[in-house]
């Protein structure tokens, strides 16, 4: 059974989490400094989250989050199921294997993607905390 029942729940959990880190002193700053537009295209359920670190962010944030389709042209596009995305933010996805098996597809300059990996490490603890905070503790794995 899929983790998320619909796109709204993806946006509430994953999108909402992304929004909480837009001003994170460590993670937010590094993602913001990348200057990239990174688009996550999810299936099951279909949903799109775009991280825009190229255009000026809202005050107090390092980047902005757009939920749903948008006109921005992504520098990096990551395609996967919402389940994989959910597991990834717990540090439960073997990244290389997922890419090799096609469970996760990446388009764009690979060094730019790899450079961001150290930045996302705090997410592994922040995401479960966020889910508990919004009453979604049942989704913690």
């Amino acid at each position, binding site marked *: 059974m899929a983790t998320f029942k619909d796109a709204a729940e993806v946006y509430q959990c994953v999108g909402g989490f992304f929004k909480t880190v837009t001003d994170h002193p460590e993670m937010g700053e590094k993602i913001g400094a990348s200057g990239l537009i990174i688009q996550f295209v999810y299936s099951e359920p279909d949903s799109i989250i775009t991280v825009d670190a190229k255009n000026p962010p809202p005050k107090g944030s390092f980047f902005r989050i757009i939920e749903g389709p948008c006109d921005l042209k992504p520098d990096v596009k990551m395609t996967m199921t919402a389940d994989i995305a959910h597991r990834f933010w717990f*540090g439960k*996805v*073997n*990244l*290389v*294997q*997922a*890419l*090799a*098996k096609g469970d996760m*597809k*990446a388009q764009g*300059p*690979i*060094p730019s993607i*790899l*450079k961001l*990996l*150290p930045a*996302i*490490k705090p997410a592994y603890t922040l995401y479960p905390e966020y889910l508990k905070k919004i009453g979604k503790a049942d989704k913690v794995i």
Partner: protein
Amino acid sequence: MNGYCGKFLRVDLSKGSLTDIPLSPTVLRDYVGGSGLAAHLFLEEILEAARATGRMPTGGGVASDAGYPDPLGPDNPFIIATGPLTGTRLPATSRWTVSARSPLTGLWGEANVGGFFGAELKFAGYDGVLVTGRAAKPVYLLIDRGRASLEPADDLWGRDTYDTADLLAARHGAAGTADAKLRRPRVFTIGPAGENLVRYAAIVHDKHHVAGRTGMGAVMGAKNLKAVVARGAMGQAGQAGPEGGFTLADPAAVKELATGFVTRAHENMVTKSLHEAGTIMGMDLGGLIGDVPIRNWSLGAWGDELEKVGVGGYGAVLVGTSSCFACPIACKRKVTAEALGRKLENAPGAEYETLGCLGPNLLISDLPALLVAGEVCNRLGLDTITAGGTLAYAYEAAEKGLLDGLVGAGAAAELAKGWGDAPLMVRLIEDIAARRGPVGDALAEGSTRLARRLGRPEALAFLATARGLEAPAHDPRAVHGMALSYATSTRGACHMNGLMYGAEHAGVMAPEVGVESDGLQQSSEGKGRLCKLAQDLGAVSGQSAVLCQLGGNMYSANDLAAMLNAVTGFGYSLEDIMECGERIWNAKRGIGNLYGSDGRDDTLSPRLLEVLEDGGAAGSEPDLPGMLAEWSELRGLDERGYARREVLERLGLGRLAALIGEV
């Protein structure tokens, strides 16, 4: 014979003789090539020595020179071996191997290297070279379009590997000759570390390709063999004549496979990533899961420092890429950097293992300084993995007050403060290669022998080794299968001894022979079986065929069979390949048994199993006994950790079984 030249060159340096060794199709089919074939030839040599002289192969176990043949003596056979795919246009197949009894571990030693030399050797007419004896004076071996000769190397002795490569390339190159079409000679050579018998001396080919592990450079140095130069008459597979070369069983099939695999290499995410980021991506990927060694494997995290030596940091020094023979992936890096008063200009750039072992493991994140250190190691001919592991061990030993008696209080105090000190690291590397002073001489022995010399049980507790070989930059606490893979590797702690690393961490998938990970790196469940199968498949693919274990990650077992069959015409089934792998693995394990290693060595030094408090592998504890029990059962080992006689006999290793029984 297709895929092979069908012969090895035998070089007896004591006699100065050069003769051909014909290879039978049966032996080639059973042992494939590379270090698998080398293990067979090694066994034949020691069996012949036992028959002729009555001297039985014996040893004193891990990190011991005891027994026969002495790893640094004339009778230790040193074997250079290519594989059937070497020299074809199939991607990621450029590699070749060097093997002997290791002067570092005292057991089976082998190292694996890419570049162009292997292909050139086959174009020059030989599948490999078997060297015995010791030259009275330094020599190099020249194999030029089917003709071999020993040449004086007095003027090369003492020179570093870069100078030697340049001098020999100039001496035997086209410049100054009437033949403008003369192919470029390919050189692999030892540096001062090999000449000085540093136990982890490497062999360096054309400055950018290193056979690093298990001290094969010291074996060459002990034989007074400075270098080997190869040049063929032609530059591609499919033709054979008196000047060299080899034919293909099905040239059209090879071409079709090559075309398809080149396309795959450009599309596969792992090979694409290797092209765009090189092996350096291991720092960023490994940093996420706690795979990178930090401060002699004692820490799980190091703030933001890993980023400085990862893909992001490397971008500032990267000026280009380069490849091995016929490989479209081009994962090698070229760099321009300046540090410690030295400049690198469009120079070969250090790879992940070098950065991991000399960098975070010594708390150094100054990337230009690490690139300089990598080049110093390459020029001097030192394995960067064991160099980093030995330095880290020495720093910690000095901190604990264990080194004062051996190297003096002043030197020990300097070592104790070595963490993070890049200039000291480079100076120590130079001292080690020269065996200069008590510190250089002691550290030239590697960490296991150094620990033993300290003569105190607590000195063994913070080694990071298996079977006397320092672990590469992949933490078994982050990827549990690596704990078993290191513990049972036939050459000691090594991520390339079998395909376990590939299966668990680098996208290798061969479900058709059971090599498929569940993706759970910090789980020990089912890893005994996976490791056994990954070892058997890897014994053929990465060690004998000889596929690159980076680019080769895109191949399945079916792909391997298709390539081998198109090139050799041997008609391997998947079962045949797995049986060959089992045979080769057991041959190497059996050689280790002859030299005194047994099941008690199927373990890791304690430091590699200490639970980390932070980082991606915090709290992770591999179930080594559980994995080992499953693996041992599948391997058919007896209570001593020896393969049962019926297992060896089933694999055609009856003579090895008898020999093990005798010694």
